[in-house]
């Protein structure tokens, strides 16, 4: 499913512009960066509560279509600026990572 459709269906807040409307075929959730780096695949939407600047490096190096911040976690303006500059799509939702995973899995069935 296209990222834009997922954003629409899950009512996600778009924090930084999508550089590209990528196809998403799955998801990965986790807050330990090396774990995500080692296990996530490049067609997966990454769901996390981490909001520090290092998530951008992981998203960029792993070529993830977007990072979805769960639980409405606060994110620094500096991180948003850097995400725009590096063309990384950051999304957010007030829902928990568990709920978002369940809803995404349902959409991608």
């Amino acid at each position: 499913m296209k990222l834009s459709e997922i954003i629409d269906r899950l009512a996600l807040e778009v924090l930084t512009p999508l550089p590209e409307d990528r196809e998403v075929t799955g998801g990965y959730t986790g807050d330990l960066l090396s774990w995500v780096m080692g296990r996530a695949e490049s067609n997966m939407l990454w769901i996390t509560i981490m909001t520090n600047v290092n998530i951008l490096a992981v998203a960029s190096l792993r070529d993830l279509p977007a990072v979805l911040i769960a639980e409405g976690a606060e994110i620094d303006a500096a991180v948003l600026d850097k995400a725009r500059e590096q063309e990384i799509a950051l999304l957010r939702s007030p829902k928990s990572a568990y709920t978002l995973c369940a809803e995404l899995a349902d959409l991608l069935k």
Partner: protein
Amino acid sequence: MSEPLKFHFPVSGGDFTSAGKASVQVKKLLRQLGISPDTIRRVAIAMYEGEINMVIHANGGSADLEIYGDHIKIILADTGPGIPNIDLAMQEGFSTAPDNIRSLGFGAGMGLPNMKRYTDDMQIDTEVGVGTTVTMRVNIA
């Protein structure tokens, strides 16, 4: 035999905001050289994990990249505390990172295992109290 293309990147210690800078630069560089996306991803991930290790444990170091016709060599060198037990350090989930580092999402104990997983060869030369040099090879697909 033509000379390899060589690049050198200093890695500053204790600086988590710029950690990963060299890897992101390398990613761009390899893309410009027309290296395949899969190879780029493997090199960039291995290098990022190594950079983070040097930032966390060794107060920085240096990363060198050498690009040959059929493979890429990554050499990460530091003058940190060294690794007392490599077998233990290579186990997934084993970490000696302090709590403040873990709260940033690091210290999963996956750094060295990821580096090994994403490269075709990895050698660790380490001496306690002297430093560590990790040399990795990624074959160009």
